[in-house]
């Protein structure tokens, strides 16, 4: 279980999170929606210790992330797959080596690494792209390699940072299908940060809206779709103020 507990974070004096509190239950996929710059990605990065809170904390299965020493933080990160907004693939490594890198860190035998790389690329429909470099891939393919890199580690949690941003509608739908398939295949708990409502409705069990640094509303997909909160309504309908 992931718990955001009264999280506060500011950058250069600008308050981004102002008491963000939210629970992610085991086995569910929770989608965090919100305006650009509202702090969705900032909240997500606290889960893997890439950012440190000014106050409050994130706990993962009872472990307060900001208090973990390096070995414990590394152990926690081994349980979490993180898919970055622009994939964050390593330019100097080919597709297979990008997927392999995290597995090598775990000290797995070579044959198991090869098997997992093959399996992960097959799961994202990228079999046969092993030797290609990130610069030779389309945006959608890069994001799928990012997913393959994360799921090859067989994580307990998957975190997706804007997985459909910058993609055409068809490729976005492919990404949504992959996220659903990943959850069914691995049974992982997921957190998806997005402002793409179609994607949110497809992949989410629950949706939380982050507004002015804290949760404005959280509920099931249906509850959000029928909300009477004017701020949430305006956002999900995409109406300018």
């Amino acid at each position, binding site marked *: 279980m992931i718990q955001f507990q009264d999280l506060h974070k500011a950058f250069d004096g600008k308050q981004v999170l102002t008491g963000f509190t939210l629970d992610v239950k085991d086995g569910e996929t929770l989608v965090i929606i919100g305006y650009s710059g509202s702090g969705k990605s900032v909240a997500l*990065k606290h889960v*893997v*210790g*890439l950012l440190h809170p000014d106050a409050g904390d994130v706990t993962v299965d009872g472990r307060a992330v900001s208090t973990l020493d*390096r070995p414990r933080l*590394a*152990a926690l*990160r*081994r349980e*979490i*797959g*993180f898919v*970055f*907004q*622009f994939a*964050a*693939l*390593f*330019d100097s490594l080919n597709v297979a080596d990008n997927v392999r*890198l*995290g597995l090598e*860190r*775990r000290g797995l035998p070579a044959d198991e690494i090869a098997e997992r790389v093959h399996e992960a690329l097959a799961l994202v429909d990228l079999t046969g792209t092993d030797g290609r470099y990130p610069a030779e891939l389309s945006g959608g393919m890069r994001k799928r390699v990012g997913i393959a*890199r994360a799921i090859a*580690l067989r994580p307990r949690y998957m975190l997706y940072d804007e997985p459909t941003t910058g993609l055409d509608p068809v490729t976005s739908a492919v990404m949504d299908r992959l996220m659903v398939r990943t959850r069914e295949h691995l049974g992982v708990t997921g957190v998806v940060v997005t402002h793409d409502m179609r994607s949110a409705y497809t992949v989410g069990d629950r949706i939380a809206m982050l507004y002015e640094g804290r949760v404005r509303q959280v509920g099931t997909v249906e509850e959000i779709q029928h909300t009477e909160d004017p701020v949430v309504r305006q956002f999900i309908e995409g109406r300018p103020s």
Partner: protein
Amino acid sequence: MIAQVGRSAVAGIKAVGRFGQFVSDMVRALPDVATWGRLTLVQMRRVGVDSLPVALFIAAFTGVVLALQASYTFTGTVPLYFVGTLVGKTMMLELGPVLAGLALAGRVGASMAAELGTMRVTEQVDALETLAYDPQSYLVVPRVLAGTAMFPVIVALAILTGILTGWLASLVLLDLSTQEFIKGLKLFYRFKDTWFGLFKSATFGFTITLVGCIVGLGTRGGAEGVGRSTMQAVVYSAVLLLVLDAFWAMVLLR
């Protein structure tokens, strides 16, 4: 005015603190040999072998110019075999390490800052961390070790090249015999001349790569930030290299 001085002082203290933290993190990553061992060999090739042409090119022309300027200065007053003395001493003690260092500050320091800066702004460094790698072990230690180990090798070859072209210039352009050139070369030679230049170049290699890594990993703000970091890496490296050069002269040559 006072507030501005105060802000500058605070910023300076913070920068020193960040530098100390960075070096301490790098030292802490040293036991992780499994990560940096193989990568260091890759960096040694990139820093060392790939940098040789530019260092040797500079050294070759420096040797020729040194021989001709020495001859021009000595004419009629100092025996010409002192050309060998001046070429040897100057290449070993100063121009070999400093000119190669300045050239490599541009080539190696800038490329490291640009590469790591790009990795930072495209979240590749964050991705490394989420894969449970320590960026210090994976990115910094291999580069700094490679720089520290390979700079003396590059400088040694640059010194040899400079002396060789100085000798050829003396032979062809100054009518100085090989025996006379070698007599001059040996005249005031001390073993310290050799190790001083090589030791100094190791500290240059350490400094240039460390600055490249610190500036690169501290990059903020997309392509503009990468450009700014690249420029800063070259400027900071060149300034620190000249300060170090004066420092070692004061400490070791007095």
